[in-house]
């Protein structure tokens, strides 16, 4: 070819996902081997690591169930459960180091708690006492994002600042399959690639965005195929396989930390329950379809694997269950206590110093309340 136009073409093989989603432990708990598109194998995490993560998996499942019960009892307004997606939730948290940041969404309660945040605080948003219940700086966990995909840009900004400051910080940012359609998803991935910042984008493809199935969301070969369009690697992983998730996300985090830039991981999983308790999933999917995913359950799969490796005795199983039960019970207690809300909080934090207008409005409300209290 005589032209030198388009010098930018580069081999993109390493950016394309492997032919199949990475799986290290299959539905029957059997070991599989898997490699990326460049042929580099993904390694199985060691047993101790898996056992520690498994504990969080069990706790996560328990909290999902408990939150569902609290909704039915009217203690929680609404709960978007990650039942079935707990492997993703746990992996997202445990691959990070202390100085790293996690950017979760509304569905990622279990990821947030797996990073250390008290579940009672996590559920503040859904309980309705305030918009966020934990201090993002305590565990480096951003508030749970509701406006879809917007948080991915914040993640890029945190990573960019860390890079400028010379900090050793990786950011893991989560979103759903539906959120990949938003413009902010595009802008976030492009900014991350252009500024070469350490962000791992982690898409939990659970096949639905509320009622809309993936095929109405994207007709790309896979969501991970979007990565090449930004110049970053994309990989797909079995989202119900905790081992594969730890391996792939761990690799992405290590690579980012070493200065390799951003990475896109798509996990294939399934939302086993309705979008939230307010949703009616029978309107858009069959029970048959849901059943297909029961055998792929991330918790039982890991249990089978660890049992086969003799990582459990009955005591260990009981201890793990008991510890999950403690967390659930603390959550129940927290939610059963009368929530405290202070009307003055409405005006307190809008600005560093309330404007004269807000001071007036606060005074008006104060007076109103004191009149009410005095029975006037």
């Amino acid at each position, binding site marked *: 070819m005589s032209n030198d136009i388009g010098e930018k073409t580069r081999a993109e093989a390493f950016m394309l996902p492997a032919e199949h989603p990475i799986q290290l432990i299959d539905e029957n708990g059997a070991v599989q081997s898997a490699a990326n598109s460049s042929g580099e194998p993904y390694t199985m995490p060691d047993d101790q690591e898996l056992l520690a993560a498994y504990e969080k998996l069990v706790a996560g499942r328990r909290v999902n169930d408990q939150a569902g019960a609290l909704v039915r009892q009217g203690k929680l*307004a*609404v709960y978007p459960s990650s039942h079935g997606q707990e492997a993703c939730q746990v992996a997202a948290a445990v691959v990070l180091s202390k100085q790293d940041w996690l950017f979760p969404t509304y569905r990622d309660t279990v990821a947030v708690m797996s990073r250390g945040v008290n579940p009672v605080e996590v559920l503040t*948003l*859904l*309980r*309705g*006492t*305030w*918009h966020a219940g934990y201090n993002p700086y305590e565990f480096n966990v951003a508030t749970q994002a*509701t*406006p*879809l995909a917007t948080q991915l840009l914040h993640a890029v900004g945190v990573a960019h600042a860390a890079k400028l400051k010379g900090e050793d910080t990786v950011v893991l940012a989560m979103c759903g399959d*539906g*959120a990949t*359609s*938003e*413009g*902010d998803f595009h802008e976030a991935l492009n900014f991350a690639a252009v500024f070469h910042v350490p962000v791992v984008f982690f898409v939990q493809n659970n096949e639905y*965005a*509320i*009622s*809309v199935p993936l095929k*109405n*969301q*994207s007709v790309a070969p896979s969501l991970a195929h979007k990565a090449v369009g930004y110049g970053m690697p994309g990989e797909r992983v079995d989202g119900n396989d905790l081992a594969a998730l730890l391996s792939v996300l761990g690799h992405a985090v290590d690579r980012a930390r070493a200065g390799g830039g951003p990475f896109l991981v798509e996990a294939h999983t399934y939302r086993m329950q309705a979008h939230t308790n*307010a*949703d*009616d999933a029978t*309107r*858009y999917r069959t029970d048959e379809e849901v059943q297909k995913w029961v055998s792929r359950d991330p918790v039982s799969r890991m249990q089978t694997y660890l049992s086969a490796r003799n990582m459990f005795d009955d005591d260990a199983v009981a201890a793990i269950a008991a510890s999950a039960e403690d967390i659930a019970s603390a959550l129940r207690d927290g939610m059963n206590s009368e*929530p405290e*809300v202070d*009307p003055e*909080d*409405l*005006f307190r934090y*809008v600005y560093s110093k309330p*404007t004269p*207008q*807000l001071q007036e*409005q606060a005074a008006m*409300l104060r007076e*109103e*309340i004191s009149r009410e209290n005095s029975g006037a």
Partner: protein
Amino acid sequence: MTAVTETAAPATTTLTFAKALTAALGDAMEADKSVVMFGEDVGPLGGVFRITDGLTKRFGEERCFDTPLAEAGIMGMAVGMAMNGMRPVVEMQFDAFAYPAFEQVVSHVAKMANRTKGQVRLPMVIRIPYAGGIGGVEHHCDSSESYYVHTPGLTVVAPSTVADAYTMLREAIELNDPVVFLEPKKLYWSKEQVDLEALRAKFDGGEPDDDASIGRAVIAREGTDATLIAYGPSVPTAIAAAEAAAEEGRSLQVIDIRSIVPFDDETVTNAVRKTGRAVVIAEASGFASVASEIVARVQERCFHSLAAPVLRVTGFDIPYPAPKLEHWHLPSVDRILDAVDDLQWED
């Protein structure tokens, strides 16, 4: 004979605000096959508020369909479809989720007709479940009307009654201009007795209607002492306040603005001149809002009839509060009555 008696009898049924909207959409799609409905979850699910319930089944996937999850995409595609002969109706799932489409709305939806000297008109309707009072988490209760009404080129309406829900949505779909159609979420489940057939009959002719609701305010309740001016979710609150005031011997008139742009200065001005006192009520934060505009217009036009400044009862200038705190934020009957008390009564 029997037949005549039957048709003559008032054929009223009890209908919710939500079902009136569903009926309006169905009737409009039946009447004109260029009407298409799309957005997030509006297909098989029927929308998170079920406003589009049954439409996909009835009209097929091509006429009522789900889109990928991207609001600018929905809005921009609607612009193109309207350019090419369709009458798209789009649903933004919640008020705050219309913001990603803001550039499309302000820079194109509102400006296309003017830009092309009327050669390209965009007959489209943007349905937005809006405002609060439903215990929604953050981003699900914004009152975003001020952003739209300040944008020339948009028609902006906010019905408060079941009958208006039906009639104004049909009118909005028939209009050759883009309409932002604000649906007060907390009124979705409110019920009224309406004669749906009579409402439908207005749209049989095909002729543009002379007494269109878009562009007209209505007196929702007569009264002589002061005027309460409200729209959308605040109208029932204003009426409740007027009822409470009546018990205390004060006669309050209530105006339901319902069409913010175009604004019905005539009805509002006449009403306030009559009473000489007015309170404007709206859920949105007050600063630079529709309420500010109404106050400004009223004092410009009724200055010499006013016995007191026009007051406002609005949401505070704060982000919409979490569910357990929203009752402090929203205009309430008591707060409206307090404002009325402040209207410098001589007696």
